[in-house]
């Protein structure tokens, strides 16, 4: 039985992957993400660059053969910085999203499933997190905790779950009304069993496709925090590059090679996540989006 079941699960997964590969959008998204993952984890091994090595070239030197993307205000190689900075964005994007997703899903499903006072309380807290000025809150929390990478991950995670919670709640409310939940009750299933086996599997696809979009927000948040000087100074990141570019006046001297590439990388990475999220949504939730 177990084997046949595994086979069936495998068949379902295969269908999903096939659908993923059929859609152009998801292919582009995947390609972008694969590119950046390679850039972040394999790139530094192949590309020789030292973050601490100041004055490898002149200050704000335009692109040349030696420095394909020119140099920064301290004479460091911009391309090297770019490659080394990719990791930060990826780590934050994935981990912060995970935290946000877990909090949001737990709050949303409990709220929707139990209803009544629990729902009223959880939703008001969620509302509060929605109206609290989100970037400033992150800034303050980062200032409070100290701006190490892990703290930033936590800060972004705990401030960005409110939207997910709302989504999970709405979906739970609709799943709860479906007859298979009552069927489970009629054969004697308990609350935990129903939430875990009946509600979660039906809420998850929606959460999941939304979460890929949340990761976009997470990446942008990290970048912004770094830009505003609340980033982890010990780790190169694209936001940090933009911070230095702005502080060093690269803008007023028109040193495009310093501030355009990190921005383009951020846009591409976020687009990659967004494309993938959109494709997941189309494949996992066909009934919700009729076309």
């Amino acid at each position, binding site marked *: 039985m177990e084997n046949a079941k595994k086979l069936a699960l495998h068949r379902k997964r295969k269908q999903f992957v096939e659908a993923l590969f059929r859609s152009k959008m998801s292919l582009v998204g995947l390609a972008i993400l694969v590119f950046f993952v390679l850039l972040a984890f394999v790139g530094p091994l192949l590309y020789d660059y030292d973050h601490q090595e100041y004055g490898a070239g002149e200050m704000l030197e335009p692109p040349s053969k030696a420095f394909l993307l020119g140099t920064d205000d301290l004479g460091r190689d911009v391309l090297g910085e770019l490659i080394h900075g990719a990791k930060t964005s990826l780590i934050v994007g994935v981990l912060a999203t995970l935290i946000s997703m877990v909090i949001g899903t737990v709050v949303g499903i409990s709220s929707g499933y139990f209803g009544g006072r629990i729902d009223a309380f959880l939703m008001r807290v969620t509302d509060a997190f929605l109206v*609290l*000025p989100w*970037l*400033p809150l992150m800034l303050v929390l980062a200032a409070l905790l100290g701006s190490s990478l892990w703290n930033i991950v936590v800060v972004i995670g705990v401030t960005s779950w409110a939207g997910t919670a709302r989504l999970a709640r709405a979906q739970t409310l609709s799943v709860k009304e479906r007859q298979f939940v009552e069927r489970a009750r009629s054969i004697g299933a308990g609350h935990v069993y129903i939430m875990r086996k009946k509600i979660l599997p039906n809420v998850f696809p929606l959460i999941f496709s939304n979460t890929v979009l949340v990761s*976009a927000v997470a990446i942008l948040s990290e970048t912004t925090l770094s830009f*505003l000087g609340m980033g982890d100074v010990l780790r190169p990141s694209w936001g940090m590059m933009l911070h230095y570019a702005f502080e060093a006046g690269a803008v007023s001297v028109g040193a495009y090679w310093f501030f355009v590439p990190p921005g383009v990388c951020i846009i591409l990475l976020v687009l990659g996540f967004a494309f993938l999220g959109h494709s997941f949504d189309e494949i996992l939730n066909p009934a919700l989006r009729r076309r």
Partner: protein
Amino acid sequence: MNSEYLLRKIFHSAITLFIVLIINYFLFRIMPGDPVSMIMRNPNANPSMLAQVKSLYGFDKPQLVQFAVYLRELVKGNFGMSFFYRQPVIDVIGSRLFATLVLAFAAEIVAIFLGILLGKIAAVRRGEPVDAAILGFSLVTYAMPTFWLGIVFIAFFCVHLGLFPTVGMYTSGVTFAGFADKAVDLAKHLFLPAVTLAVVIVGGYSMIMRSSLLDVLSEDYITTARAKGLSRRDVINRHAVPNARLPIITIIAINLGFMIAGALQVETVFSWPGIGRLMYEALKARDYPLLQGIFLIVSFCVILANFAADIMYGYLDPRIRY
């Protein structure tokens, strides 16, 4: 909409505000740095002076009492004193509020108008190149860090082309001949920051309008309207859009939090003398009372906007009763 709905929403908003107040109060209690020494700013203060200040500010009382005092003072309009400016917080904020409101309003109006228009065009011409172009534009702007767009705009329009002034709200050191001159100068300074802010939020609106309109267009009542012999334009404008814009209203209100985040970045990049920049400065100076005040004011504005959106929703959607 009825009074029932109204009351419920007022009640919800009040509770949300209260939760925000609690978070706001205790968040700043646990911030590093001893508030007493912050107030004194005097390394040589002796213990008795410290104790005096403590009891003066009520720091020796239990937290709950302090919280009650805090609430009482808030109601009176006393948001505390700014460490840095040595002025009442409310005055500091008041002096900067106008700049932010101008910026946010200008951006929001452009974004709403443009977002709905683009979303409508994309939905109506689904699958055509126009749709793809609008979708692409929306996605790219959505993926853009606000401050980065600001930087690029400055580098290109101000530095490269020299079209606009880079910093501030007015040209400094100039005495304006009259109101008109002043307004023109303001408009020149406002243009780029407002466009930056508008561009980064317009994508979200247009995407939501598009998908919401597509959903509505597959409803039966659209087929009914077509069967009645209405032209395509009338079907869309009279039947589809009024239904499709409902979700947009909620999104706009929720989006206000993101507007603040965007404003903070834009104000930093363009040296716009608004609340966002003030907040950034307060953060750097560890001016907690000021930060706390800004938090509260901003949260209050967002709650108010959400409330307004709920009211508008209730007005536009006759089905809303609770």
